[in-house]
């Protein structure tokens, strides 16, 4: 819900029209200028012809009927018919050109944003909620392309329509036309003010609407609490407060909309009444024709459509420009982590890794690591333990160069790792996250993510090494071709872990990083995961944020990380002897895990099954 609200707030942000922004927005059209020219021309033709048809109707009356000239009527009809065909061709062209161009601009913008997002560093993601980034790529691009295509189409049509109508009116009778000309700005002004008010009310109601959705959501999820506390009546009363607010806002928006057109029309009617009266007098003295009066009536009656369009485009334009600014801001954000100009290829990561007096803090400036120093030998397995927020994940993030230290140096093979090309580091790292992240697609595709050029045999080989093969081949209906669902949701947590292990195996990394899951999986899966990890770590340097005793015990070295420092380090036996931090952590963890192992094994398995059957629904 809150993401919804965030987006609303962003939407309400409007922007002033400044030359550089407009220029940059216009620049998006530059590569497609032929298309723009095409739809501008055809919409202008369409619009001018609309006004011309009304003029032709006048000719029907004045030159045909009044003069009783049937041949003239047929002649005019031929012209009329010809222009209908021309106009239809123009309509086809502008709908197609503007529409397809709109899709094209959206495509271009999405591509530009997505590609840039791939290059941004993790710190950018930490500061920007995924929901916002998605809004950038989806709704903001839509709004900008709407402005650049339909916004231009509608306003061109409107301006052209008003202009050509005015020209025809001037031709018919310039005195009366001048009267019409004076009220057009008034109508446009009122229309714009109306649209702004309506838009504001709509925003209020959308805001109320997202609160209502939030209340529904919470009440459904908390239904057990609601029932147990018997709070139904009070909840309904509270909810009625929300729907009342929603009712008032949307009712107001709706009736303001209903008031809008009549108001503009009545102003037009004032002019119309005058024109009929005054025009009637002029007919008497031969300055005006009856067909001319008819034409004025028609022009004025249909004048409200272009005015309505202009008001709409204008009132929405500011929001579209704000969207464009947000897009540009994202695209202009430089990646904090990038290759140095003289970056070299890292040949191997299997060497000594050293944190040399490293300081690090995130954007909130609260320091996470201070003066952190650590030396790791090639092939060593390091277990990181300690309380949440102590800095374990930060060490791993720095190691992967997702972030870079503010002070101090991290060396791999004696080289400052910032001298290496990023890609040459990343393609030698294998990583398994605490909450394993899979992509929509098949099991096979997900494993192959570790090495895109791997063939089917290699994929299955990796799955075997990781201990995932058995459950894939036997447990999944379609085996390797089984769809894992959105973000892998059709699989259990344990299964996702095994697949992400297999993925890491296939990548044949030199440095392996694992953030162990805290949630328990059943014993069998647990054993499989352990075996997979063993296979993976052989001959590689590895860092594990460890929660499981078996993992911790097998580590060459255990680091207890607290408040950004190494509180204790050593082997399992050494640390237990100390009877310090590690001892406390270990005994607590020990007790808990054995209890799970002995007493509650069944429970965990049941949970797993429940999860699967739920997901299968």
């Amino acid at each position, binding site marked *: 819900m809150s993401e919804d609200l965030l987006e609303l707030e962003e939407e309400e942000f409007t922007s002033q029209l400044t030359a550089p922004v407009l220029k940059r927005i216009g620049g998006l059209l530059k590569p497609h200028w032929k298309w723009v020219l095409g739809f501008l021309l055809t919409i202008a033709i369409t619009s001018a012809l609309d006004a011309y048809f009304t003029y032709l109707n006048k000719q029907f009356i004045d030159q045909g*009927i009044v003069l009783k000239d049937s041949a003239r009527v047929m002649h005019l009809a031929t012209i009329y018919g010809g222009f209908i065909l021309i106009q239809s061709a123009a309509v086809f062209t502008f709908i197609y050109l503007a529409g397809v161009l709109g899709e094209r601009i959206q495509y271009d913008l999405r591509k530009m944003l997505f590609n840039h997002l791939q290059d941004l560093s993790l710190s950018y993601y930490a500061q920007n909620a995924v929901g916002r980034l998605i809004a950038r790529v989806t709704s903001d691009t839509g709004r900008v392309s709407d402005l650049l295509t339909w916004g231009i189409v509608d306003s061109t049509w409107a301006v052209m329509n008003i202009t050509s109508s005015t020209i025809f009116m001037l031709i018919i009778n310039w005195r009366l036309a001048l009267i019409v000309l004076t009220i057009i700005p008034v109508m446009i002004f009122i229309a714009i003010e109306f649209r702004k008010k309506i838009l504001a009310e709509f925003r209020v109601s959308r805001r109320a609407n997202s609160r209502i959705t939030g209340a529904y959501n919470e009440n459904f999820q908390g239904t057990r609490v609601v029932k*147990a506390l018997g709070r139904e009546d009070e909840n309904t009363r509270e909810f009625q407060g929300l729907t009342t607010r929603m009712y008032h806002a949307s009712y107001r928006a709706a009736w303001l909309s209903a008031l809008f057109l009549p108001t503009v029309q009545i102003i037009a009617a004032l002019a119309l009444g005058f024109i009929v009266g005054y025009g009637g007098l002029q007919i008497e003295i031969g300055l005006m024709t009856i067909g001319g009066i008819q034409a004025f009536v028609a022009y004025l009656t249909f004048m409200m459509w272009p005015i309505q369009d202009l008001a709409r485009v204008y009132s929405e334009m500011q929001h579209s420009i704000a969207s464009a600014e947000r897009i540009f801001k994202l695209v202009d954000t430089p990646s904090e982590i990038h290759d140095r100009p003289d970056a070299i290829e890292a040949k191997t990561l299997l060497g000594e890794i050293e944190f040399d007096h490293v300081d690090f803090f995130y954007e909130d400036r609260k320091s996470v690591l201070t003066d952190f120093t650590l030396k790791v030998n090639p092939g060593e397995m390091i277990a990181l333990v300690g309380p949440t927020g102590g800095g374990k994940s930060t060490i791993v993030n720095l190691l992967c160069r997702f972030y870079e230290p503010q002070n101090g140096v991290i060396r791999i093979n004696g080289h400052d790792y910032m001298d290496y090309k990023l890609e040459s580091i990343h393609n030698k790292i294998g990583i398994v996250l605490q909450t394993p992240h899979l992509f929509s697609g098949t099991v096979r595709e997900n494993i192959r993510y570790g090495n895109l050029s791997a063939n089917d045999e290699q994929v299955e080989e990796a799955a075997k090494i990781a201990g995932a093969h058995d459950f894939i081949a036997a447990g999944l209906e379609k085996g390797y071709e089984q769809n894992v669902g959105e973000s892998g949701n059709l699989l259990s947590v344990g299964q996702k872990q095994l697949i992400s292990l297999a993925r890491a195996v296939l990548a044949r990394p030199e440095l392996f990083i694992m953030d162990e899951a805290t949630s328990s999986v059943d014993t069998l899966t647990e054993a499989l995961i352990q075996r997979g990890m063993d296979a993976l770590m052989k001959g590689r340097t590895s860092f594990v944020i460890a929660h499981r005793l078996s993992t911790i015990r097998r580590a060459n070295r255990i680091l207890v990380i607290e408040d950004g420092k190494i509180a204790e380090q050593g082997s399992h036996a050494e640390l237990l002897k100390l009877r310090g931090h590690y001892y406390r952590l270990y005994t607590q963890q020990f007790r808990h895990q054995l209890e799970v192992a002995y007493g509650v094994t069944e429970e965990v398995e049941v949970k797993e099954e429940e999860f699967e059957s739920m997901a299968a629904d």
Partner: protein
Amino acid sequence: MTTLQTAHEPALTFDFRPTLQANRLKGLWQMMSDYRLSYIAAAIALAISALSKTFTYILLRFFADDVLARKKYIGDSLTSSLVWIGLGFIGLAAFEGIFSFLSGRLAAYTAEGITRRLRDFLFDHIQRLSFSYHATTPTGDLIERVTSDVDALRRFFSEQAIGVGRIILLFVINFVAILNLNVKLALVSIVVIPLILLVSLWFFKKVTKAYEDYQAQEALLSTTLQENLTGVRVVKAFARQDYEKSKFEKDNWGKYLKGKILLFMHSMFWPLSDIVLGFQMLFGFVHGANMAIRGEISLGTYIAYIGLVVWLIWPIRNLGRIIVQTSTGMVSYARLMEVVKQQREPLLDGRHQPEGPARGDLLFEDVSFMYSDGKSDVLKNVSFHAKPGQAIALLGSTGSGKTSLVNLLPRFHEYTGGKVLLDGVELKEYSRSYLRKQIGIVEQEPFLFSRSIRENIIYGVGRDIAQEEVERAAKAAVVHDVILSFPDGYNTLVGEKGVTLSGGQKQRVAIARTLLKNPRILILDDSTSSVDTETEAEIREALNGLMKDRTTFIIAHRIQSVMVADLILVLDKGEVVQMGTHAELLKDKDGMYRRIYDIQTRIDAELEMEIARVN
């Protein structure tokens, strides 16, 4: 459930259950009760507005024929006639405007009013549906219905029904007007109308399908985007940026292509219908002009005709669009009715309505329970006696029936065999509302609402509570100091926009709430997970305070939490396999209790051994 019994329940909202009809249109008509008059008034206002417009052209005809041609003046001069006619135009426009506004306002009043009532009803209704309904219905599905489907109905009333009415009214009124001008001319003007209506119906059905395709592709694109952004670490760690770019490119380009198809359809339909309707108009113009030349109709009639015919012809092609759209309203009606028809849990039904609180004496006699699908017994012949103030521990693994057993007490589920007696009266005789007031539930990680901590503590207590009392409860629940450490103290918001509480903190907030509620019977979920020792001691302290003088059911799977209970029930596959006190149960060497006990002792022994080994 009879109507007499439901009549007890306060009518908080308009009842939509009578709108459940096999015939959807009939059901929608039922939904409109109280609003029918205003909706009909909206339609009448619409008709008046359309009539005013039509009369504008009739006035134009009078102006051309009577005033200009025949010199029949209103008053005595041309000038005064012209003034009157001018005022007539303004008056008619004002009339048209006012009634068009009234119609819009009345339609909005109806649509928004019905929607508000529907939202209120659905909220109230859904929270009163049975526990098993909620357990089996995904929240996302319900949300979809109460938001999108309700909005589709709102649009049905505010735009579609009135839109169809508007087009039909415009057609009928202007057609009748042209008929009055000249029958032949009228018939000539509508030749293509049936054709264009059929074609537009066909087209909009097609385009709706193409649009769904387009949206499906957009959903695909969003998924790819979402997965990429949430999995940014994986993407970076495997250096798969280029692969991701090409994957996104595929979906992105796919959307472009789907959009192109959609636009091609539009760019064909509109100009083609322009040609057909344009030539229909032209045909009428030429025909009318020739009639006027031959003197069959007057010039004024012709002028009125060319004004009126526009309102006859052009709206028709939009009729197809609106009719196709109404079908979504119908589908939404049916989807909502699936929720409306669900049976509510009667909260107040019950023959036995004691004045004061219960004593808390619970007797289970051969109680069995199975879910309505009837597959297997969840509980089998459970019998035991809990005296007021006693602590009853339920030990067993998940699936053994512990939770199902306690769910019977507040009548979340109804037992299917045997008897449960509370203070000597069968549970089914009590109203659910009464029982739930007597029972407090503290879950291991309770659901908190996104409101302030204070509001969460007094949530559902159902009486005015002074801040002091709230603080006293929070102190007793050992959570007061934690709350004070937050920036806004008791007014700190819980959840996304405020603080995130740990499982133990949430549990203690629930304990504070339960203390305020002061129930006679308590259900405690004590399957404590890995909380650190300090927290565990705090929770234990809070729980001990809470359990005092209440009949308590403790759900547990650790010996430590059940040792002190007055009665321990060991459950396995829905059956009580052992029952007694800790000391009694330990005596049975082959019993399950003893086995669990041994395992846990062994754990301690193993730990000591391991430490001894390294030393």
